[in-house]
């Protein structure tokens, strides 16, 4: 199966022009676009970008020549996070592939032609962002620094350092927005017990394999091929482990093809289409067998599941996002979690895959839990993978906007299902509402199962 993007008819300008004519310029996309909300600048809005694309096509006649296009035009596409909220909002059905086309054009040009607020992150760092080992290393450094800062400056360290010189602010932000979740099960349990007002001592040091146990009916569930994802395996390996426990406890027969690699999304975002194509090819080979046997491929991060679905038709039907898989499973009985919880929809799930109801169904299934909805659930948190590294100030503003919206619901806890969003919102919450924690949805589910097992034992 060839890369659908490389051979997409969208590269044909006539077709582009035809698609562009579907846009009636009504502007209903504006309030859904994170970059417009943050800047108030219509160049940084979906309608603005489509207008620019139309002008690029019409003025060039045959092929969009990146060199002849004014920098400001290309910049507008580089500034698009790619959250696809506009596509969901559009009443005329204008496809996001148009903006994606513009993004690909912008990615072709050398970074020095763009007006980036920070010097580009060194290529050596960017290239390693899809290597779990490197991420693990980063995560440990970040964890250490966060720990020291908390010791020195207290719980509000992030807020305090925010007022420091611009350089430190960016570094702190980088450290602050690396996704994290409690490493040991005991720590996770202690944290959630604390939120729920429960006693913890008895469960200290609980070994994880004892915690959930296997399903009563181990052959009942589907066969599942587990896609690791670099951020999950590098930064959230314990969450990942708990997720697999949850699947086993729900009767899934898990396999984990060893030779799998990054899905390729990061390479695309950082302007390395060649690398991205390589990774796709490798993963397609690795998972082809599983697909032929009717095994579903599950990806834990919404970003990965979205990217894998772009591999081609058989992947579009064979890949399932973790949240959707869980919502369809016969989960072990869940214990009570008497908390107000706000769910943040990752754009790759809500807009990229239309996943809205499933995470809420899962939360509703937890006894005692009350779901609260933010005012702008459809707006991106501003993480955007490598985008956030290119536009840190904008990303920061969006993270805080999102954190404020979530905190205003009165939630005791925020949950989400994508590592990028997890880190970005955690960083925003540290500034806006330091008392509101954020966790991966799967960690909360794991805890609900554990609590129930625990209560039946005692």
């Amino acid at each position: 199966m060839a890369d659908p993007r490389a051979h997409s008819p969208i590269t044909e300008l006539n077709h582009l022009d035809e698609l562009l004519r579907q846009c009636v310029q009504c502007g209903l996309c504006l309030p859904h676009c994170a970059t417009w909300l943050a800047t108030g600048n219509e160049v940084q809005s979906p309608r603005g970008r489509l207008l620019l694309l139309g002008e690029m096509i019409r003025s060039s006649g045959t092929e969009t020549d990146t060199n002849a296009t004014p920098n400001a035009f290309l910049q507008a596409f580089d500034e698009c996070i790619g959250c696809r909220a506009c596509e969901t909002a559009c009443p005329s059905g204008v496809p996001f592939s148009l903006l994606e086309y513009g993004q690909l054009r912008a990615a072709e040009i050398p970074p020095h032609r763009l007006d980036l607020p920070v010097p580009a992150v060194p290529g050596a760092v960017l290239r390693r962002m899809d290597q779990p080992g490197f991420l693990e290393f980063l995560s440990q450094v970040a964890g250490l620094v966060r720990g020291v800062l908390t010791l020195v400056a207290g719980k509000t360290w992030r807020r305090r350092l925010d007022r420091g010189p611009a350089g430190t602010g960016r570094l702190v932000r980088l450290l602050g927005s690396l996704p994290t979740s409690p490493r040991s099960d005991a720590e996770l349990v202690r944290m959630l017990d604390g939120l729920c007002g429960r006693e913890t001592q008895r469960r200290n040091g609980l070994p994880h394999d004892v915690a959930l146990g296997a399903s009563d009916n181990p052959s009942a569930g589907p066969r599942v091929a587990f896609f690791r994802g670099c951020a999950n395996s590098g930064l959230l390996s314990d969450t990942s482990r708990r997720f697999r426990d949850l699947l086993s406890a729900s009767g899934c027969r898990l396999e984990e093809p060893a030779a799998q690699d990054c899905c390729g999304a990061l390479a695309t975002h950082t302007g390395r289409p060649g690398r991205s194509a390589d990774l796709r090819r490798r993963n397609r080979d690795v998972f082809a067998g599983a697909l032929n046997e009717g095994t579903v491929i599950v990806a834990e991060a919404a970003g990965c599941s979205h990217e894998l679905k772009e591999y081609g038709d058989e992947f579009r039907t064979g890949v399932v996002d973790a949240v959707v898989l869980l919502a369809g499973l016969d989960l072990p009985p869940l214990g009570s979690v008497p908390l107000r919880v706000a769910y943040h929809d990752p754009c790759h799930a809500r807009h990229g895959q239309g996943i809205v109801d499933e995470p809420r169904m899962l939360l509703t299934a937890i006894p005692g839990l009350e779901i609260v909805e933010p005012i702008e659930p459809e707006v991106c948190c501003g993480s955007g993978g490598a985008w956030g590294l290119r536009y840190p100030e904008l990303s920061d503003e969006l993270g805080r906007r999102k954190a404020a919206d979530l905190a205003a619901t009165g939630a005791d806890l925020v949950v989400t299902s994508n590592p990028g969003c997890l880190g970005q919102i955690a960083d925003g919450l540290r500034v806006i509402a330091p008392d509101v924690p954020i966790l991966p949805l799967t960690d909360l589910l794991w805890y609900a199962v554990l609590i129930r097992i625990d209560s039946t034992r005692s």
Partner: protein
Amino acid sequence: MPGQERNNPKAFLSGLREILGDDGLLTDDAARFVYSRDASHLTLGRPLAVALPRDESQLRRVVGLCRTVGVPVVCRGTGTGLSGGAVPGHGALVVGTSRLRDLGPVDSIQRRVRVQPGVLNDGVSRHASPSGLHFAPDPSSQSAASIGGNIAENAGGPHCLRHGVTLQHLVSLDWSDSAGRAFNTGRAVPAERGLDLVSLLCGSEGTLGLVTSADLKLVVDPAEVATLLAFFPDLEDAAGAVVGLLGEGLAPVAVEMVDQAMLLAVEEAFGFGFPTDVAVAMIIEFAGQPEAVAEDSGRAGGFMERHGASEVRRAADDSERDELWKCRKKAFGAVGRLAPNYVTMDVVVPLGELPGLVREIQVIKVQHGVEIATTFHAGDGNLHPGVHYDERDPDQTRRAHAAADAIIRAALDRDGSVTGEHGVGIEKLHVLPWQLDRETARLQRGIKDIFDPDKILNPGKLHPPADADFAALKPVPAEIDFHWANLTVSAPADASLAQLQQTALERGFWIPVGALAGDEGMGLGRGTTVGNLVAELLTGPALCPAGTARDFLLELWAETGDGRLFHAGAPVFKNVAGYDLVHMLCGSGRVWAQPRAVTFQLRPVPESLGYWRFQLPSDEQQEVTLLERLVEYLTGRHGSLGGPMMIVDAGTGSVVVLIPGRSRPWDLGQIGEDLANLLGTPAEHIELPFNRATEILKAELIPGWALNSSDWTFLCRLPDQEPGAGFRPAGMGRLIWQSTPRLIWSPDPETSHPGWHADRFYSGGRVQPPVAPAEGVPFDFLIRMKTLFDPSAALETPEWMEGRDG
């Protein structure tokens, strides 16, 4: 000199940058291209730059700088307008309000909120929703349209049928004139008399000033909403059914229609599962008290079935209702699926003309060989026919535009208006002269010259050229003329208001400025003329008004000081064709112009009037507490057809409570129980048919002074006063309290009370001229307007105006 500096854009831009900072000024190619477009698909040229001020002072300084340099200013909200109002000409400065997004605290007692112009329409309602309130104007673009844009265009929307357009929801405006001077123009007092600049600025499309913040009215979320969906096999039948339904005296909050072509597009886009083999889908919504909503929606459903509907459905819950509304509100965007290009009109006709216009559009469609898909604010007589075409086909393009012009002609032939919601902008410059007479157009240009002498504010918009071929003056009505199908009444200024109201009441309708009877005396029994009502805004204390004359006036013929007759407005429920001279002049006395004739909207009359008289306790403290609780209760019982009121009489120690409503156990019955709980057993209680109430009440039920006093002052609590100071000035023994507009009428000459605004309305049986406007008002503009309308000072000139220079 303007010319010189204009040739030096560098200096100008660096001046702007100094005000706005680097981040606030966009000069790159991408910004200049993007901001040259809006939702209208019309273009004029490339702007010089785009300014995005972060606060109101930056905005004013930018405008001031443009004035000194002579650079045109085009104010822009989110560019969702459809008439090209926000499209800049070549070399203009676009001033975007998207960074002015402050939302003030919601005042849930006064039902107000102060917002900056960049706040989105939806955002106001979201903000007010925890207080159980919302902002009523709801254009289909409400999720993206800004409040500033709503004010500039006087935006409407489906629920305007009940609540009125944006103008009716403005308390006051902070605005910058073309020199960057800050003004506040408002109605701190709900019945403030004088030239109403809020009415002038609202809908002026950025050609007179820039709004920097607005004090908005909020309305209470209804306790119950019922939404019906009716399908009709025939379009004309459906339009006829709407006219018939409103003629029955039912008062839905919205009546919307979507025709088959539009229904197909929406179905393709969203797959709601509506039938597509019908000619029309109609949404009818009722809101308010649960029992009333159930009764009315039941009646409406039956009416539709008897008048041609093939099916009537009722939304079972909120999510089904949301789906119905999504079908209507997303229709505009979904037209992108029908054809690459389209012309969308917003013509409006008198209600009774709707079926005829619908028939004529079918003919035009065939004659010009074009495709037309239409959505309707049917209850308002406002429709959006969209003619579809592909601009790559020149012949199709020409035919589409010819068809659009033919539809506009057809609406004007039926006494309609070229634009009900979208505004003139540049799109309708060529058709506006078909509607305006030469004198009205001259006055409109004169107003523009006063407010913007250097013509820097949104030039090239709204005003057709002076030498255009304007319409002839519409004949002045010679006698009272009811148009029952249109729910309007026209009358010469000297017609008796009491006589007009009496005829209307007999048919179950009225102008809800309060009922009057007889031709003698003052107050509740006073007779006056239609012209006086328009000039004076109020009639004095009257029976259960639902608003002032400004709320129901549609059309005005008036004469300037030098005897020139002009005609403003149209007999339609929405009209944004040029400056709103109708509402600007209503209540301005006879200072600027003399009313000659008018057209008013008729509304259904309340079914019954509840009358209660209670004896007040002799202890003064007890009395005060009781009356305050009563006022609180009556404020909550405010209905849209007529407002509750009370008459306090210290002489007899009694209070009379008058509440319009229905003679049902759940309405007036319940109110009676509530009142008894509050005040004890009434000394007297009757329920009477509202349309005969004035005849009956004249007899001994009302204190004599309320009917016969020849002196009346109205009082209104000034904003920003400490709460808890009581509902009336201390020691006022005789008063009439009215919920809408919220005023107290006193027959006693002593009227000065700290914290209260007092307007000596009648003295010795004569209406007094309006009092001097509050500070913050541009006196120079008011005086130059006087010179424009009354160059030889032939009309009355209030004292405060004398000796001031324009």
